[in-house]
């Protein structure tokens, strides 16, 4: 199997100028690889650096040093730690998707449109995109009267379902997903897990953060345990 991501000696330090250039070390010497089509679970206590690592890979955070080579669909490599902004944007549009813990949606856009945005961007016709969105909402049990409402007014669990629907429907090659099943009931949790497994079966690689044992056991092929910003041990599941 080909590797999709090779992270080597990644360090991340925040310098807070407002607090007299105080330095906070968040990640220390992180190295790991991910195979194509693999699900890697990131585990560790709150504050261990899981989300920081994920945001570095997505380049929302700028790594302090180290490299993160991603193999793109066309077989070429891109080092996400210092790739030109345009290359990262192009990658986000076509191959790499980040589904954060909380929904960040443009205000005043109906749930249906938020979710089908990724499909429309790939040139799928509006009706077909909406059909897939409806199908996804149905499976995740999002009440129909919310489909054309603005997600900013939704409850935590409803927002979560919009967020995960958007990520799954865009069918990325590489998905970064932070707590996809938190604040969901058992049945919906199961539906999300099934959808992520289906995505994996279609070839998607997933980097997963979850505190939920059940979600972790059903999804991850392998775990990376973080403690104080460093990898403690890599565990086969």
């Amino acid at each position, binding site marked *: 199997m080909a590797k999709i991501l090779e992270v080597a000696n990644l360090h991340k330090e925040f*310098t807070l*100028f407002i607090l007299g250039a105080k330095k906070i070390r968040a990640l220390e010497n992180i190295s790991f690889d991910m195979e194509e089509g693999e699900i890697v679970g990131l585990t560790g206590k709150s504050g261990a650096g899981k989300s920081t690592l994920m*945001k570095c890979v997505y380049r929302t955070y*700028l790594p302090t040093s180290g490299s993160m080579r991603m193999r793109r669909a066309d077989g070429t490599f891109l080092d996400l730690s210092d790739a030109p*902004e*345009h290359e990262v944007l192009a990658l986000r549009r076509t191959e790499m998707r980040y589904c954060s813990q909380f929904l960040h949606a443009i205000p005043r856009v109906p749930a249906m449109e938020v979710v089908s945005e990724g499909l429309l961007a790939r040139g799928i016709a509006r009706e077909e995109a909406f059909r897939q969105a409806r199908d996804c909402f149905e499976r995740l049990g999002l009440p129909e009267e919310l489909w054309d409402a603005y997600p900013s007014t939704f409850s935590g669990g409803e927002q979560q379902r919009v967020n995960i629907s958007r990520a799954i429907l865009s069918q990325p090659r590489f998905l970064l997903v932070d707590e996809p099943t938190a604040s969901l009931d058992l049945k919906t949790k199961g539906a999300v897990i099934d959808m992520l497994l289906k995505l994996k079966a279609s070839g998607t690689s997933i980097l997963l953060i979850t505190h939920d044992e059940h979600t972790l056991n059903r999804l991850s092929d392998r775990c990376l345990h973080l403690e104080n910003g460093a990898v403690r041990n890599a565990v086969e599941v």
Partner: protein
Amino acid sequence: MSQPQDQNWLLRVRGLTKIHGDPGHNTIELTGPEHATNICPESGAIVAIANIDFDLYPGEVLGIVGESGSGKSTLVQLLYFDQPATHGRALFREVDEGRSNILTLSNQRKRFIKNHLMGMVYQNPRDGLNFNFTAGGNIAEKLLMAGTFHIGKIRGRANYLLTQTEVPVQRIDETPSSFSGGMQQRVQISKAIANNPPLVFFDEVTSGLDVSVQAKVLDLIRRLQQESGISMIVVSHDLGVIRMLTDRTIVLKHGRIVEHGLTDQILQDPQHAYTQLLVSSLL
């Protein structure tokens, strides 16, 4: 294979500089964020912006943030030929396949570029609209400049644009002075996009509007961008506007770029002390 990505720009700006007054030999070195001033201590010249480099890609929305006086508006005004640049190059793919510095072209060619290939929406509607003309007349002016003389076509296009920007078409024959601030901005946007330009500049277009009107104008800009893929440069001191509209952001201070990056990175992991201050000041 497609051409390498870094050659795919629509607009390439290098070394763009605007100095008011007579600069001395050290004017550039003695000004900027590290000196906390844009006034040269030796010559008294004012460096509005200096050594600005960036590329804008097709379909991209680039944000420019900074406090008042940081040079944000100067930057877009130089590119729209409202003021002459002191130095620098701006290559525009739509003009001579990107080989000519558009800043040094003849006035006639600059006028052509402004009328056919660019649009500008100013903070103050009085800068972008003629208040002696009607709303329809203002749009007609831009169409006439680009060589559309058929009165029916002009009327049709003006109707279409006003509908698109949700200005009541019944008011097409009124002057903008009788319109609300939000409506004036929407007429200005109609005028700016009248000839389907590939590049539009927005200079603090929502400042001074109340929040509900601001939201409608921002939604309109976003919708136009999604539907037509226009490249945009959005100048704003409001990080909320930048977050909502832009893909990449440039941070200006005392006329220099202190930081640039993906917009989410600038907002969540700002590297420069000044950007950190800006982000932490966000309500």
